[in-house]
């Protein structure tokens, strides 16, 4: 309860109060011009998490292409890094791993050492159930189903200060994701434009209703409804001050018109508006590629193109805000080393993930992928999990958000960090 009220207690209200008195607040106007401005409160960092639901084939996204075993296990899915063999080869990252050609948007940031990759990442719980694996990864407790909170909600509680605004934790999803379950204030909203009192075709009516509601909530005896009402209207007005619908990304960026592109675009808007966003969440779907996964073309290629192009559009749009933002992807597990009978891959164990930011120890494929031979596979079939997802998540939370209490963030876990972030 306490944390939510920070917005009302602290500088937030006065800031917005001033802003609301007349015209567009200066800080918003300037933000719109991609100028980073000093806010009255200390600027906070933002962690953006993207869950790739369905289990991404990490071996195709970032292929350990030197292993003959993989080539033989995937007769029609294996891609080579060799140039001139026809088609687009993998992008050779380090002589051992090759990035899928449809993720070429990532290459520059990898070479600039802003993008780090962890390979062999996954959960210690070997379930191959999407549901269970997502549940465990999002609660952050791989052996306990009854954990009521999600790890990102706990992260919000561990930021060390009250939520500065209603936009402290925002999920760009229609319902609250498991990662956000918990007692700390968080908002799930698919479309920022919905953050308003709406009566289609009747703006006067909507205004009247909004005024009525605001007055009623201001007067109510229930503290919860009164305070949340106040926050809601403040939040609504903050968003109304800017033209959400006709948002113009900076640097002439064009976002892919996909779900994840649209989500990241809205997250960029919130960040650039300086409304106190600290933890953001978005989803990317369609990774469960049992059928005809494709290689340089096909469903997997389209998915990784969409993901990498969306993230890079977001990154470019951030402009001067890049220093304050880290993006991290995650997926519940990887896929079988062997392709299946329908040109796809089945549920496996380890996958890889991507971390982008200026404090990332980038330009490296982290982790410990052992030589691909049958003896090194888990259950004789899957890429072994050699890095616990919690070691990466906790390091990112520690270095980017200054959350050092690993035990509170990931109960039951004590492990080492692997250096995905700069020391």
């Amino acid at each position, binding site marked *: 309860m306490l944390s939510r009220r920070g917005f009302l207690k602290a500088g937030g209200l006065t800031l917005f109060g001033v802003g609301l008195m007349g015209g567009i607040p200066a800080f918003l106007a300037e933000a719109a011009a991609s100028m980073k401005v000093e806010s009255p409160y200390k600027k906070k960092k933002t962690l953006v998490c993207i869950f790739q639901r369905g289990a991404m084939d990490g071996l195709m996204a970032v292929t350990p292409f030197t292993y003959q075993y993989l080539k033989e296990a995937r007769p029609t899915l294996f891609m080579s890094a060799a140039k001139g063999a026809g088609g687009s080869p993998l992008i050779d990252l380090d002589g051992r791993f090759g990035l899928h050609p449809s993720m070429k948007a990532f290459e520059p940031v990898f070479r600039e050492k802003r993008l780090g990759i962890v390979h062999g990442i996954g959960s210690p719980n070997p379930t191959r159930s999407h549901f269970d694996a997502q549940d465990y990864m999002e609660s952050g407790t791989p052996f306990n189903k*009854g954990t009521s909170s999600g790890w990102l909600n706990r992260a919000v509680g561990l930021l060390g200060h009250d939520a500065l605004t209603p936009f402290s934790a925002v999920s760009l999803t229609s319902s609250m994701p498991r990662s956000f379950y918990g007692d700390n204030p968080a908002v799930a909203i698919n479309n920022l434009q919905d953050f308003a009192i709406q009566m289609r075709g009747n703006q006067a*009516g909507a205004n009247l*209703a909004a005024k*009525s*509601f605001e007055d009623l909530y201001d007067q109510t005896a229930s503290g919860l409804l009164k305070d949340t009402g106040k926050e809601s209207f403040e939040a609504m007005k903050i968003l109304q001050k800017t033209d959400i619908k006709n948002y113009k990304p900076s640097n002439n960026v064009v976002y892919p018109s996909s779900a994840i592109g649209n989500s990241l675009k809205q997250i960029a808007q919130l960040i650039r508006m300086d409304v106190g966003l600290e933890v953001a969440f978005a989803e990317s779907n369609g990774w469960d590629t049992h059928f005809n996964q494709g290689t340089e073309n096909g469903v997997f290629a389209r998915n990784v193109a969409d993901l990498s192009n969306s993230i890079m559009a977001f990154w470019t749009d951030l402009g001067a805000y890049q220093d304050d933002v880290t993006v991290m992807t995650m997926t519940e597990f990887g896929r079988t080393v062997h392709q299946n009978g329908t040109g796809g891959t089945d*549920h496996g164990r380890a996958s890889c993930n991507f971390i982008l930011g200026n404090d990332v120890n980038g330009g490296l494929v982290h982790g410990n992928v052992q030589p691909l031979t049958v003896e090194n596979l888990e259950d004789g079939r899957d890429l072994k999990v050699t890095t616990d997802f919690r070691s990466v998540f906790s390091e990112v939370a520690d270095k980017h958000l200054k959350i050092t209490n690993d035990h509170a963030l990931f109960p039951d876990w004590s492990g080492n960090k692997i250096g995905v972030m700069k020391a």
Partner: protein
Amino acid sequence: MNSASKKNHRSICFAGLLICGLLLFSSFFSLHNTVRNSFRFPYKKAGLTERQAAAHLLSRFTYGATPGQIDAVIKEGLENWFQKQLDARLPDDSLNRLLSGYDALKLSNAEVAAIYPKGGQALRMAVKEGVISKDSVKPDNKTYRELLQNYMQEKGLKSQQELFRQLISQKILKAAYGNNQLQEVMTSFWFNHFNVSITKSDCAEFIPAYERDVIRPNSLGKFSDLLLATAKSPAMLYFLDNFSSSGSNNKAQATQSSVKNKQATTLQTQMAASADRLPMMVDNKVQNAKKTQGLNENYAREVMELHTLGVDGGYTQQDVTQAARVLTGWSVYPTGSYGQAGKNALDKMDADQLKKRGYVHEGDFLFNPNRHDNGEKMVLGKHFGPDGGYEEGVQLLNMLAHHPSAAKFVCGKLAVRFVSDKPPQSLINKMAETFKNKDGDIKQVLITMVSAPEFWSTSSVREKTKSPFELTIAAVRSLNADIQEPYQLYNWINKMGEKMYYYQAPTGFPDKGQYWINTGALLNRMNFGLALASGRIPGVRVDLMALNNHHEPESSQAALVTYSKIIMPERNLEQTIKRLTPMLNDPNLVKKVEDASAKAAPPQKDMMQEGTAMTAGNNVLGITYERKGKGNYMAKQKTGGNNSLLAQVVGVIIGSPEYQRR
């Protein structure tokens, strides 16, 4: 209640039952009720009038009072009304007519599996039968989608989405229109307590039958029956993985010494246990599972932590592991084509043979002795086995259901649902005593609760925040809305933050106002009120004029007062009315709204001719009229919605803070 009115009530009761043609049977019950109904509600001592008490009662045990229901409850007698709700035998003819249009509601699990195949299953069948070539299966290939659709139609297959749509629709209709309101409230409560989720595809198809056969019939029965029924249901067996849990049948290993070994359960063994489930998890090789061995603790842990004892209920990790061993072999009778091989084998044996071999087959439940750990176990100090078979699991669940921690934990949750987010400990203690003394009889626990002064205390009245589902149904009931498309309401419920049947964690939705009320959700509640009142929710019609017997209020001020009282009876509305009045009297605003209203819904010619009383001058609320039936006029609702000021007033009342409380 004086004896005259009681007599009066009884004769009304008789008359109604005569009409039902159940004279002998029912009158027995009616007499019986009066005898049994020995409790009295102490609301007067708490300073509540009978009307206030009736309003409070309805706010707790229904999805919201319908117009006039407070009067009806007073007439019937508060205690009598409550007893009938506990009996949950009121006829529901009109509701059943509405539900008859939903053809999936009465299907068995096997029929559901046959008609509503899981995602991808129909496709695999079509590929196998050569109807679709597997190379054509690409997301952007329209041809294969059409082929698949034709294939499904030919085979009489429907999408699972349709099954879930029907599940959700029936829940909305039952909550909105059912007469046995308490049973429906309790069904929601227990479903959430024993939560399962559509998000887990293995268990999704079993959820309609879970609510229908496991939860609802036991919702006012004994807690131990409910617990056992959930434990044996395919939905729970799949949701918390117990269907796959198996023990090694090695008795030597299962003695005291192994108890110690098990104590040392480490991550590794847990991982190994789960790894053994691997073949089951991958695609559809469920049949290979019979070869797998491995203990799965998920259900054993949650049955203690979430269903019975509570997290601080006094059990250890060792108890969890041991309980999991007791429950090995509790599984699902094979359904659908995938379990065919196992089913054939089982079907060959007659009931005697099955019994002789230690199998227990009840409906969809199967106890498979070959997967059961025959050894000795100890849970919470009680020994089970060796060779306890199915019965030791029943004993374990019974022990948990009757444990003092369960009484406290379950009664605490009931008090949170029905009294306040922080109910007094004294009340929980009273309820827990009844729970223990009356063998976990849920009705008796509720009677103890309502008979306690704490229930009627002013600190409990209106202390709960309506969940999005409760708000939606309450609003529909307050306005006597006509729901043609229930699923449209679900879209709003989801938007406001309660994606029912999809809550992922076994904890269920948290039952506290703080969880429901956040900024995004709150604005959506307000928008919901406006959308409902102005007729902008497709397939949900409201007739605002009918609520006031087709009397048009004389002014917007009068409308505010009249409709506030209709929608929020027995509340202190002074603040609401005071705050809203100035706005309604602002001529500029009103004019703007009227203009918008006129634009959205131009007056009908018909109305201009016949609407003599409704000149522009006194049509203060901006309502446009159309002829309907025998000279009845009703506020117009076109697809564009009803922009009248009345609709706005009502929308604001539904979205107001006072209405969010119950």
